[in-house]
């Protein structure tokens, strides 16, 4: 086994080699019940509470396919421009591993439900077409926890304990064809593809596609070939890539690692590698040099799937607007530049901004808050924007308070801070923290009096016609009111008090 840990710097690696990438993505469908039984699919239930004789493979239990899962898979295939099979079967994938109590996984083998599609993604201002090899339906596995070892990994563990709640949840596997010609953009293309795929799943409403909960999982294949050659190199498959940023890092890291090995005259071993979120490094897993024989055969317990052309056409006609088209339409509606669109897309803020606009906020305000204050807070706390504990409706309320003059931007930021800290709704935070703008003229007047007394020089300048000096006085009022004064009204009152008009 090659154990070298050296890497070749990315630029040098790209100067010498050309990457070919491929992606296998698993999407857990958001059906109410499992693929072949009526157990619920909700995340986070106590262990082995979502199990029944079918998903535990008790003797005599028989599976029946979930119609919604079949429909969702066909819709995914159609949205990916695939051909839908007129007739296909489930297959048994036999393997000896305790994450499936049957000792096989019901999957599809040589007869996938959807084949030969594509998804266009935009990277760096150009469109890259990612060809889809196949989309098939299978069942998810149980979750094993490895006990007794030092690392929590399967190697060195004394024994394992298994929770089958996840076993049997419908899982769609989407496999790309090898993607050539992306050159140094390969990591970004991989990330853009998964991002776009996730948007597509969301728009179809077939999955909640939460990478951190594992409802969208990605395996990344990378191989290198020396520049000037055309034969693909040996590929590795990096598993466990559970965030969009990690998809990019995994491709980047694997290019650097493989380049170093090849440059030293070594050879790449066809193997599974595990991605580590903390370091961004990969470590070797199972070797695939000897192909594992899964002894696939048609699943005798389930009848063939034969979607009628009428049904497929009906599903096609009901597909939602594709995310790329939707983005272009909204970009025009919002009057946003390409650069700002890309920034929103990269920050994963687009859907949030859209939902906030739907909640009644002008597009410019929605974008300002999500890409400014909220992005900053998400960044500080190391959470995804979408996971901030604040809703588009709450932001709409804050924006409405600003529009009505009850809050200024500075106070609005404090309200958002309170909402994020779990202090309640925007109105509750305003009340509890006493954040309303001081619009009481009496209170404002007394603050102005204090400020004018304390800043007699500036007051004199204004009286003598140097109106620019009023800024310092307004600043003093804002400071004295701890930001709660209405700055515009304060300015008017100060000028009036000093007998100056503009």
């Amino acid at each position: 086994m090659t154990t070298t840990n050296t890497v070749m710097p990315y630029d040098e690696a790209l100067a010498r080699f050309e990457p070919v990438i491929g992606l296998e993505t698993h999407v857990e469908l958001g059906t109410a019940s499992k693929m072949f039984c009526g157990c619920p699919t909700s995340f986070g239930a106590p262990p082995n509470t979502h199990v029944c004789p079918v998903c535990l493979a008790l003797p005599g239990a028989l599976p029946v396919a979930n119609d919604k899962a079949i429909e969702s898979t066909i819709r995914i295939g159609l949205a990916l421009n695939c051909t839908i099979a007129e007739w296909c079967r489930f297959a048994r994938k036999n393997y000896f591993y305790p994450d499936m109590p049957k000792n096989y996984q019901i999957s599809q083998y040589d007869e996938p439900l959807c084949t030969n599609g594509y998804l266009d993604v935009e990277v760096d201002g150009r469109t890259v077409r990612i060809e889809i090899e196949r989309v098939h339906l299978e069942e998810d596995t149980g979750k094993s926890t490895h006990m007794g070892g030092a690392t929590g990994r399967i190697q060195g563990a004394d024994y394992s304990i298994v929770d089958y709640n996840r076993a049997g949840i419908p899982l769609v596997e989407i496999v790309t064809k090898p993607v050539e010609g992306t050159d140094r953009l390969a990591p970004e293309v991989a990330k853009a593809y998964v991002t776009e795929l996730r948007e597509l799943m969301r728009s179809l409403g077939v999955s909640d596609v939460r990478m951190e909960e594992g409802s969208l999982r990605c395996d990344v294949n990378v191989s290198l070939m020396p520049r000037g050659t055309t034969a693909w190199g040996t590929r590795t498959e990096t598993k466990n890539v559970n965030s969009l940023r990690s998809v990019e890092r995994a491709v980047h890291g694997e290019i650097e690692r493989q380049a170093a090995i090849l440059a030293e005259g070594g050879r790449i071993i066809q193997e599974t590698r595990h991605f580590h979120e903390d370091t961004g490094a990969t470590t070797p897993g199972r070797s695939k040099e000897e192909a594992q024989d899964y002894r696939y055969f048609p699943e005798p317990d389930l009848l063939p799937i034969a979607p009628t052309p009428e049904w497929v056409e009906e599903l096609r006609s009901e597909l939602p607007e594709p995310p790329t088209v939707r983005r272009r339409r909204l970009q025009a509606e919002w009057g946003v530049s390409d650069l700002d669109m890309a920034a929103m897309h990269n920050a994963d803020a687009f859907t949030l901004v859209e939902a906030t606009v739907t909640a009644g906020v002008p597009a410019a305000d929605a974008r300002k808050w999500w890409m400014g204050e909220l992005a900053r807070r998400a960044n500080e706390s190391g959470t995804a924007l979408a996971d901030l504990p604040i809703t588009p409706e709450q932001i709409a309320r804050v924006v409405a308070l600003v529009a009505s003059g009850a809050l200024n931007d500075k106070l609005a930021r404090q309200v958002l801070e309170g909402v994020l800290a779990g202090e309640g709704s925007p109105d509750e935070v305003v009340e509890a923290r006493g954040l309303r703008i001081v619009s009481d003229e009496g209170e404002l007047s007394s603050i102005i009096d204090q400020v004018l007394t304390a800043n007699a020089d500036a007051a004199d300048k204004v009286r003598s016609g140097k109106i620019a000096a009023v800024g310092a006085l307004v600043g003093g009022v804002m400071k004295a009111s701890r930001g709660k004064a209405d700055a515009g009204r304060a300015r008017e009152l100060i000028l009036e008090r000093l007998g100056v008009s503009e």
Partner: protein
Amino acid sequence: MSAITRDEVAHLARLSRLALADTELDHYAAQLDVIIGAVARVAEVATDDIPPSSHALPLTNVYRPDEVRRCLTPEQALAAAPAVQDSRFRVPRILGEEA
């Protein structure tokens, strides 16, 4: 001569984790012999121009509606497990130590 030996039936039983008594081994050896004979006859007529069939019934599209049904309780689910820990099925070591 029979197509399957008594020893082979014992081996199959072990692989299937079935405890069979001596009399049962004889009983199943005879039954399996008949089954293997039947399969052999099918294999004789199955030529390349006959597509293999996977399902005996001419049915397709048999689905169930996406509805949640009652599950087993964890106690029921784990009742037959040889070992249990933290409401989970406890299974022996999966992989040995790797270098």
